[in-house]
């Protein structure tokens, strides 16, 4: 491992570059100064108190949670359908249909959002939390399909056949054998789509007609220098929250692989 000191140094510098902005979050979230600058001025919890007293933030947070829960549930369900269909069954036209479902991964998000917005406005549909959910499910489903496809792929087909031979129906086999085995994948998909939805900005901003949603709220607050320290405090909480969710998702993903006897082939995506 010590054979490549230059590469290792480069990688560590790269990590430092990646983490630099995020490391500033906790440093200035506890800094006792309205001005975000070095040298530091001592510890305070003032910014966190300011956050908890903010009514608008609470509304935005509630809206974001409603959206993220709906989006992660819906896109994971759609992902189960798509992954099961593509892994287990042979049918014509699989390529184009799956291509369409996965298209949001390679389509600039703004284009998808604007196309949907044009249709919604032309049909005269009122923008609301519901329209945000509609749009985000579109963006999140490909991630769910990707995670669940690998979960279904590592499933041993002979287990299903054995269950059918022993007299179970297709439905009961799915419920008793398949579902428990892919459950870790389902949980990972749920957590990851939750995180994506929770952080998502473009759709939340354009398909929500100014409805207070967390990402839109944060975007607005950063414009006011006086609000920045409180936003850094909020950012700190969100980063810790995201890391916890992802660590849990990673745990389930690995357990899923271990359970079906597969080999670990890397992290997310």
């Amino acid at each position: 491992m010590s054979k490549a000191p230059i590469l290792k140094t480069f990688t560590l510098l790269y990590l430092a570059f990646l983490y630099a902005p995020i490391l500033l979050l906790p440093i200035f979230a506890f800094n006792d100064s309205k001005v975000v600058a070095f040298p530091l001025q001592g510890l305070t919890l003032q910014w966190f108190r300011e956050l908890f007293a903010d009514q608008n933030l609470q509304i935005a947070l509630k809206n974001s949670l409603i959206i993220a829960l709906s989006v992660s549930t819906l896109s994971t369900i759609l992902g189960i359908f798509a992954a099961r269909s593509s892994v287990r069954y042979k049918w014509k036209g699989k390529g184009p249909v799956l291509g369409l479902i996965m298209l949001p991964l390679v389509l600039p998000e703004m284009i998808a959002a604007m196309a949907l917005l044009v249709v919604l406005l032309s049909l005269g549909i009122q923008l609301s939390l519901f329209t945000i959910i509609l749009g985000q499910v579109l963006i999140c489903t490909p991630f769910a399909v990707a995670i669940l496809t690998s979960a279904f792929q590592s499933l041993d087909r002979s287990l299903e056949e054995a269950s059918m031979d022993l007299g179970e129906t297709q439905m009961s086999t799915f419920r008793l054998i398949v579902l428990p085995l892919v459950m870790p994948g389902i949980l990972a998909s749920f957590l990851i789509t939750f995180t994506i939805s929770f952080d998502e900005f473009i759709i939340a901003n354009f398909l929500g007609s100014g409805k207070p949603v967390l990402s839109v709220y944060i975007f607005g607050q950063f414009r006011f220098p006086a609000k920045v320290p409180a936003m850094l405090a909020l950012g700190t909480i969100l980063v810790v929250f995201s890391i916890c969710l992802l660590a849990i998702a990673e745990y389930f993903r690995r357990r899923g692989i271990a359970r079906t006897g597969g080999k670990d082939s890397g992290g997310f995506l």
Partner: protein
Amino acid sequence: MAQTNSSEAKSGWLLISPPAIYAGLLLAAPLATVVIYSVLTGGSGGSVGLPVTAENYAAIVEKPIYGAILWRSLYISLLVTLVTVVLAYPVAYFVSFHVKPVRKSLWLFMITIPFWTSYIIRVSLWFVILGYDGIVDQTLISLGILDHQLNIASYGVPAIIIILAHAYAPFAVLPIFVSLEKVDRSLLEAGQDLGESRWMTFLRVTLPLSIPGVIAAVLIVFIPTVGDYVTPKLVGDGKVPMIANLIETQLLKLRDFAQGSALAVVSMVMVGLVSVVLVMVSKRMAGGSK
């Protein structure tokens, strides 16, 4: 046998229909609508109507502002892609070749964590760091190094490139890593046994074999950066708009659905064409170094 096949196809179709119908209604249909709108005549307040016209596309060619913004989006995203992929390759290489197998997941997890934290917060933090009276300005002034604000975030294109290269960095590492993992290690030993230097083995064996990952990394960075909305909106108070900002202005501020749709179609076609060219160039490079 034929029966099983048709029942299998039926089950497959039945299962795929919910996500397929969803994507059809909320993605394919809106995209088709945009294509149709782009050749209609735009009216006031977001209305579109007959006659069918090519005027919206003609305007994109004729008005220099459209061309300038499309061109800017293209070269910014190409530069970001280049910077991101060139920086990511050695990192992916290090993790794949010099990290013990049990610890690879941990390294990848470390690299991907920043990507999973709010994009809005990451981008906004750069303004806290680089912006007017930001951390860089304040710190340099309070240390007596500077007597005025640098306000690096207002520098336009370079600021956009720094911020986007940071935002999309983790995207590039993963696909390159995956393709490097697939490189058969015995080939490398063979190369060195046959007297190739380490560096030549890399150039002639490892690099060509990892090109699929590089292509994936290029596309995965290029596509979202072309359409990035937030960073150009914030940098220099939106005075250096990119495509996404232009489309927003046309659709929502000017309420010209026809012109906005034409811009969306042109940018989609541009993204598609450039992606195809990038894939071809990368493949040529892989073939050429054999």
